[in-house]
């Protein structure tokens, strides 16, 4: 059954606003500094929220709207902002996202960029990218993909020197997962652009000197040539489709980066889900085998074999266990596919996103493992998740999702498997690996062991042997 959202505001939202997602994606561009065109608070709140997850510096500039700016327009603040960013950070890219305020007063950021470039006619100016991310449209997830799209749209082109033959749009995943994807495609011998690559910028080492802009990120030169690739691979079925929601006319042209490159430069766009679980990871590996023309490397066949063996070791402890899964839509789909294939019941699949495609995609991806009686909810808040659990008498054995659902898990006295964004009550969120056979192994072990620990702790006997 599908759960319908109410129009009565939102209590304990299971989403953040679009500019947050944009800022994270922008951190995946080498030498970029994000700037928000709006009030100072947006930048500061988002910095705090992101720092608390990645535990890394996250500098975001703001054009710092005042009352005067709001009435007379943000032109002057925009220019001062760019000047000050350049003099303090010397960035290669200034990546700008709008906010609800600047969008509402009708700021034309493209024009502001153009005017700045005209008046400063200087070839050493940083590149400027703009993503339109009013927070009254979509969620942080759409903001992330809007920024990915915006970067490609501004930078991608063709040229004399060929670029990388493959573009991999890796979606909103952990830095550790980005590193794992890089390892996998390298093992296939594929030369690919991974974008956005914040695996270093949001997960760096301890420093000897302070980097105003941390090293790492997808190089602009590589992004520029992404129009010459043979194929783009996008991880995720839904991506920014939810950005259509909430618009008065449902006719906004929303494209993903892959779709754009296909329509503009004839780069074939292939889409597959986030590779979590054996089924979804198989799909991803088959796609890589097809693209590279090479068989799946022995290393991964072994990893897959060990994962199957691990599934067998643990299957009885998860069999029939009821899971509540929540987060961004593509993550929910990946986690539900994983839960279903290990014999758990995803009794509630919830997202704050509103693409309208969650249920249909789940049904397609899970196939015969799709539980017809599962509650699938879009546009859901944590209060609605809690209410659905209560009212439908779901009695879950565990929750899988970000740390904001902890209070529900605590109330129900069941384990929470922390994955996704944000994780604000643990360290190491940047190192959580869930992708590929290896990531799935870790996720499976954590799931089984959390259930065992829960059982052990609640048991009057507390066996230390099983």
């Amino acid at each position, binding site marked *: 059954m599908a759960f319908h959202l109410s129009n*009565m505001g939102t*209590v304990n*939202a299971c989403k953040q606003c679009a500019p947050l997602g944009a800022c994270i994606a922008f951190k995946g561009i080498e030498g970029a500094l994000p700037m928000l065109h*709006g009030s100072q608070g947006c930048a500061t709140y988002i910095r705090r929220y992101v720092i*608390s997850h990645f535990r890394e510096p996250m500098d975001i500039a703001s054009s710092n709207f005042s009352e005067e700016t709001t009435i007379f327009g943000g032109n002057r603040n925009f220019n001062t902002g760019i000047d000050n960013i350049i003099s303090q*950070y010397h960035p290669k890219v200034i990546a700008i996202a709008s906010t*609800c305020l600047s969008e509402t007063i009708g700021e034309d950021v493209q024009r502001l960029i153009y005017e700045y470039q005209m008046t400063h006619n200087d070839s050493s100016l940083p590149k400027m990218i703009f993503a339109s991310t009013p927070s009254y449209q979509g969620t942080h997830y759409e903001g992330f993909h809007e920024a990915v799209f915006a970067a490609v749209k501004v930078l991608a082109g063709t040229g004399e020197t060929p670029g990388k033959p493959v573009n991999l749009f890796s979606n909103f995943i952990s830095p550790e997962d980005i590193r794992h994807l890089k390892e996998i495609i390298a093992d296939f011998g594929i030369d690919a652009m991974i974008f956005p690559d914040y695996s270093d910028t949001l997960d760096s080492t301890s420093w000897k000197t302070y980097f105003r802009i941390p090293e790492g990120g997808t190089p602009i030169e590589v992004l520029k040539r992404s129009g010459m690739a043979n194929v783009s691979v996008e991880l995720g079925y839904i991506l920014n489709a939810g950005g259509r929601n909430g618009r008065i006319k449902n006719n906004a042209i929303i494209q993903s980066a892959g779709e754009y490159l296909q329509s503009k430069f004839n780069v074939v766009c292939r889409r597959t889900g986030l590779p979590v679980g054996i089924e979804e990871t198989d799909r991803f590996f088959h796609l890589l085998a097809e693209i590279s023309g090479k068989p799946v490397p022995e290393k991964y066949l072994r990893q897959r074999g060990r994962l199957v063996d691990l599934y067998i070791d643990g299957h009885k402890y998860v069999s029939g266990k009821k899971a509540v899964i929540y987060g961004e839509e593509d993550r929910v789909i990946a986690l539900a596919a994983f839960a279903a294939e290990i014999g758990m019941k995803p009794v509630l699949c919830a997202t704050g996103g509103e693409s309208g495609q969650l249920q249909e995609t789940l049904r397609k991806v899970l196939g015969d493992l799709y539980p017809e009686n599962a509650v699938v909810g879009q546009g859901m808040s944590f209060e609605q998740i809690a209410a659905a659990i209560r009212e439908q008498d779901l009695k879950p054995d565990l929750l899988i999702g970000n740390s904001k659902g902890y209070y529900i898990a605590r109330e129900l006295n069941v384990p929470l498997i922390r994955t996704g964004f944000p994780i604000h009550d643990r360290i190491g969120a940047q190192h959580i690996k869930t992708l590929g056979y290896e990531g799935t192994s870790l996720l499976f072990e954590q799931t089984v062991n959390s259930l065992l620990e829960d059982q052990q702790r609640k048991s009057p006997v507390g066996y230390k042997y099983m």
Partner: protein
Amino acid sequence: MLSGFLQERENQMLTKGKDTFDLVGGKPSQAGAVSQRACVFCGSRVVLYPIADALHLVHGPIGCASYTWDIRGALSSGPELHRKSFSTDLREKHVVFGGEKQLFQTLDTLIDQYKPQAAFVYSTCIVGVIGDDVQSVCRQMEKKKNIPVIPVMSEGFQGTKKDGYKIACDAMATLIGTDDSKAVSPVSINILGDFNLAGELWILNGYYQKLGVQVLASVTGDGRVKDIRNAHRAALNVVQCSGSMLHLAKTMKERYGIPFMKVSYFGIEDMSDALYEVAKFFRDETIMEKARQLVKDELTRLLPALEPYRLALQDKKAAIYVGGAFKAISLVKALRLIGVKTVIAGTQTGNTEDYRLLKAICDDGCILVDDSNPVELSEFVKQTGANLFIGGVKERPIAYKLGIGFCDHNHERKLALAGYEGMINFAKEVYETVTSPVWRFT
């Protein structure tokens, strides 16, 4: 003059003993400066946040509510409505056609469902632009539900965080004086500007109880609507965090003739001074005697306990970057007590007068800075060779990336740092981070 930074900020940073000009505070942040400040909404939200039996509804798109959900360590001894995040979650259609109906319906539903003692409705940036008449909706709802429904006109762009404090104070002022049902002792105070982070208010309540002083209302730590409505009947307002609460204290003096005094509960000296000053106010020798006894008892216990930390931390250097100047001043003193010298002292919201006081208590060579940013702070840490940074979440990565200790003194913290037992906690935290063996690997 410190160089290499934004020129427009020249008079917002100085080195004591070298520069003779006054540090200028209270200026709006520069666009593109990457200020550590937040916005007007943030100022209002943090001040009102701990009122635990009120509904705090954020009128705007989802971000502002999402980022302020359950982030303060402000504890409640009873209801916990303040730990939920309520938003009208405005969409494009509301931006175009107006959000008043959405606000009305949301309030209507939530008040019925959660039965709060009052509701605060926070305006965010776009509400100010699309022209919703929030005040009128609040009035209608107040009549309909028979509870105070208070508009907090905190559009983010209308000033700084400090303006948000003032707006929150004005919102509370409309509550004060609307109830007379609490029993009040002639020896009663309101505590203004403690937010009961990690139960700090309860520590203070314990001290005042020992003195025989009634705490009538806490504004706003472990706050209750009824207490605040009765707050006009206290004999004295005791104000900590004066940056945020002085405005309310002044309003209450004007309206109800309640005198106020500024105190700090942080560090031994300031904590003891606070108790003595309150005792002095009531001109009652028994209260003063109890205060003396309390301070004596606490110090007898505390000073020997601090000694090992002082020895271990001798000559370590600290950087301070916090919200308000009074906290910074207390920190300089408290650090000095445990042998730590302050080499950087900065705040988000101090004013020029505050900085004169801060400068006076700092040592020569200390860098003072107003409304700083990561570029400056990281540079200062390098220049001064600080071993420890005291700040909030946004300053933490600066410290950690540069391989120095960090102590959270912001509103997210889960460790009580006020009062005498707070001083021990503070010394222990500073000691644990500064002397950790992990730094040998950096």
